């Protein structure tokens, strides 16, 4: 059976069967809360949460698992970090491929707190121009924000090199699209802040995600409330993860994420198959493809525009004639489309998952060829 779902950058499908299995097990059998008591049901649930935290820390490339804190998604993680830094009267440098999860908040902070931002110098595919990056750093620059993997053309930014260029200025990395697909070395790259989601590259359920803070004392919590610790105090605990985890966590979702991490499949295609697919699509006369210039900096998604059909029409034809599910338009990333020259009409995006086989990619290619005849 052909896998016609190519919208994995929106949310992953299918999930490993373990996701539903672990959720069912949690809801029907273990079912306890996190902390706040000592009976076995609580301990089992709490151990599940901490196992996920440990695995995520390892995958993120950090030894500081306590600084990996659960949130409901990457957007809430970004909101926690950007709001918690209390930026005012300063300058922010951002990558040219930012999603509105960052842009809407940055715009609000600029409006309210006398903050300005610049877009870092970049190449045509949206990758940062490392050689000229230092020219955009000002004495007042307090934060650099980088979308690690674009949700429009899949380009992966050179985080390690960017951090080297900006030195002591803190960096926030949006891992929403890259986590699960790309090797991460949070400690090795000296990353200060990161945000991630559980339902995309990790193949977990929606409603899961998290943040990482190298120095949590620099960030105020966004949500205040009970943590099951320091309960005698009206103040939030200053230590992580409790500082950023007020309220009962999404235990159902986190156990589903544990299922995803345990049952993550061996990819059914490789990077060469993706590259070959993009090369073949590029050769179709009516199609323009948007991808990284460098094969090694390409994540598992790319976009196209078509001479004869706008993006909405093309997406509709792909579904009605071939059952192929994709996302058309601006992908909540108008800045990325401005950078690529596809604003405001947008593109059609194809986002793969480890479950796509070579024959699924061939099916997609043939559909695009037939539409372009």
């Amino acid at each position: 059976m052909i896998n016609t779902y190519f919208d994995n950058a929106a949310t992953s499908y299918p999930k490993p069967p373990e996701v539903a299995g672990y959720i069912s097990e949690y809801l029907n059998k273990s079912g306890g809360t996190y902390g706040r008591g000592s009976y076995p049901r609580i301990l089992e649930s709490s151990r599940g949460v901490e196992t996920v935290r440990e695995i995520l820390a390892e995958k993120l490339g950090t030894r500081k698992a306590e600084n990996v804190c659960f949130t409901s998604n990457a957007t809430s993680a970004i909101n926690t970090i950007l709001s918690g830094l209390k930026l005012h009267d300063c300058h922010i440098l951002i990558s040219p491929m930012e999603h509105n999860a960052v842009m809407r908040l940055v715009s609000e902070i600029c409006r309210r707190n006398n903050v300005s931002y610049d877009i870092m110098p970049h190449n045509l595919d949206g990758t940062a121009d490392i050689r000229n990056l230092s020219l955009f750093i000002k004495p007042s620059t307090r934060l650099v924000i980088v979308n690690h993997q674009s949700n429009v053309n899949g380009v992966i930014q050179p985080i390690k090199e960017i951090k080297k260029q900006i030195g002591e200025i803190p960096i926030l990395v949006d891992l929403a699209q890259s986590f699960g697909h790309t090797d991460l070395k949070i400690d090795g790259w000296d990353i200060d802040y990161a945000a991630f989601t559980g339902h995309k590259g990790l193949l977990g359920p929606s409603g899961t995600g998290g943040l990482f803070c190298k120095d949590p004392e620099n960030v105020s919590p966004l949500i205040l409330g009970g943590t099951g610790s320091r309960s005698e105090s009206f103040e939030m605990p200053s230590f992580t993860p409790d500082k950023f985890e007020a309220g009962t966590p999404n235990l159902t979702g986190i156990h589903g994420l544990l299922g995803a991490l345990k049952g993550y499949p061996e990819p059914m295609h490789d990077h060469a198959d993706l590259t070959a697919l993009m090369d073949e699509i590029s050769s179709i006369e009516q199609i323009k493809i948007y991808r990284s210039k460098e094969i090694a900096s390409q994540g598992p998604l790319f976009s196209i525009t078509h001479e004869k059909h706008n993006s909405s029409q093309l997406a509709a034809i792909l579904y009605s004639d071939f059952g192929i599910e994709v996302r058309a338009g601006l992908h909540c990333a108008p800045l990325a489309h401005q950078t690529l020259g596809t604003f405001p009409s947008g593109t059609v995006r194809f986002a793969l998952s480890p479950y796509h086989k070579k024959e699924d990619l061939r099916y997609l290619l043939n559909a695009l060829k037939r539409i372009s005849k």
Partner: protein
Amino acid sequence: MKLVAIFRSTRDTIKADRLCRENGLSCKVIPVPKEISSECGVALEFSTEDEEKASALLTKESVRYSFHRI
């Protein structure tokens, strides 16, 4: 006389419990005794003979704790 270790967070308690189990150190998860705190969380109970071993392990793994003899 019992040796009770209390931790500042659920994460630290669960981590300490795992580390002790992985290192063959016997401990029991108990509610935080009322003599120590009115906290609603959990604590670990050790044999008093294991204080040195438990202390060395938790310190090595950077887990913050405090011991109480009750």
